């Protein structure tokens, strides 16, 4: 049936719909800069979503946990082969994405008799050389975009846009605590956006955001990691611990205080 071109187009369209449907409920991963490096934040009911890929590179994904694992493994493999064959400095996001994970996801997406990756992924590099991009996001069809100050992967484009709009102020000079709070409340904005029908949401008040975060954190927990340039080790990746995250959640839901 697929010999006819329009059937193929139709099959691809179905696939796209299927993917959008599968990914729609995903909790977004938000990444931004802060004073000492980069911060990545999301929530999860259990499986981890933010990982170390290489010394100065982090990987995060939303979608099916098994697909995230496969993509994570590929990114780590490529990074380490690159580091072995050339040098640690030659491991760059651009090569990981343009020649690695981008084409991999595109190939899986195009092969209509096999399952595509039900995932969107992000990679982040601390202090890239030669003015390269700090973040790359890759969609389930393999299309990728670079970003400098903020990157978001989410269930729907609307949620991602709402989060980016909320984080429009550059966080590059903020200390970790402040950047964390901004990210948590941006996550709350995304949550509200995801629950609301397309047109019925005005700019949410801080009370609404706080409520959305509080109710969401009853069933999922925060997960966050940093690429911290002040770490003395070769690896700059560090998962944030429970107390830090709890403090960030408190700060973001404290509507009586200064808010963000």
């Amino acid at each position, binding site marked *: 049936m697929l010999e006819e071109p329009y059937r193929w187009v139709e099959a691809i369209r179905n696939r796209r719909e299927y993917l959008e449907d599968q990914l729609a409920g995903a909790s977004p991963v938000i990444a931004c800069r802060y004073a000492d490096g980069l911060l990545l934040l999301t929530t999860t009911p259990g499986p981890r979503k933010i990982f170390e890929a290489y010394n100065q590179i982090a990987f995060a994904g939303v979608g099916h946990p098994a697909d995230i694992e*496969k993509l994570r*493994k*590929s990114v780590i493999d490529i990074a*380490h082969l690159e580091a072995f064959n050339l040098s640690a400095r030659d491991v760059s996001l651009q090569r990981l994405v343009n020649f690695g994970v981008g084409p991999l996801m595109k190939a899986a997406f195009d092969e209509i008799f096999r399952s595509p990756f039900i995932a969107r992924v992000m990679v982040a590099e601390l202090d890239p050389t030669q003015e390269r991009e700090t973040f790359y996001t890759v969609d389930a069809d393999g299309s990728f975009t670079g970003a400098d100050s903020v990157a978001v992967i989410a269930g729907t484009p609307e949620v991602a846009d709402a989060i980016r709009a909320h984080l429009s102020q550059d966080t590059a000079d903020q200390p970790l605590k402040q950047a964390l709070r901004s990210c948590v409340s941006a996550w709350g904005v995304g949550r509200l956006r995801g629950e609301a029908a397309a047109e019925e949401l005005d700019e949410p008040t801080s009370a609404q955001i706080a409520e959305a975060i509080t109710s969401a954190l009853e069933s999922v927990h925060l997960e966050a990691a940093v690429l911290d340039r002040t770490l003395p080790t070769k*690896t700059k990746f560090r998962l944030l611990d429970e107390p830090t995250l709890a403090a960030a959640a408190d700060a973001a839901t404290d509507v009586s205080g200064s808010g963000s």
Partner: protein
Amino acid sequence: MSSGGDWRTTPAAALTDGSDFLHLLKENGHSAPSTTSQHAGTIDTPTEGTTILAIRYREGVLVAGDRRATAGNVIVYDRAAKVLSVDDRSVMALSGSPASAYEIARLLEISFQHYRRTQLQELSLDGRLRTLSRLLRDNLPMAMQGIGAVVPIYATYEDGNPREGTEAGGKIFFYDVLGATFESVDFCTTGSGSPIIRGALYYQNRWEQPFVERDEAQALLLVLKMLETAAEFDTATGGFSATAAIYPQVMRVTRDGISDIDDETLAQTYRAANVSG
């Protein structure tokens, strides 16, 4: 790309596919140092020659090496680095052929990183020792031809595990050319200059003061004196030179991780011992 995700692979194969960087290298057409092919002809004077030593002192392990690389009776280089960091808590010191040794150290470092990142857990001490052993084994064809033999010392700091009855502390392991692993209790030295100082080290530890009771300054002084002694009698071991600012390389492996002992401290230790370069 790894075929680890292929549905046809058995669970056991998928496990090695997933975690083994050496396997990944071979699968992608890059070979580990292993060269099973037979080479015609040999290199008469490969670059080698060394004294390296490691001692367990109060806070951990000191690992030291001279800086000279030789080929026959020619000095190739007087600033060679023979003590290399493998990860945040272990170092490897090399004696033998630098070409093979650097490659092995590099593979080891990347293998451990790759394992930790893909498997989300640290490779155990036994796992790390075994990896180094495999690499030496792979290097055997080169060693057999007399051009690539490597005899490393591996030093690490282990947090104790009460359940397994192990105590926290520095550990020293050494290997033979075939890849057999041995643990040293107090000290270990290999390389062309090692026979000269082995007895002296034993004497110091047995009859003067046990190394594990010495603090860092005492341990450092001992290590530098030993290297100087080896350099006196072994042409393939480099001494130190204050004028040219060539000092041995010394690294400490302690609970806080690994770090270099800087040239300034080395120079001061020499001065305090009234040794002039």
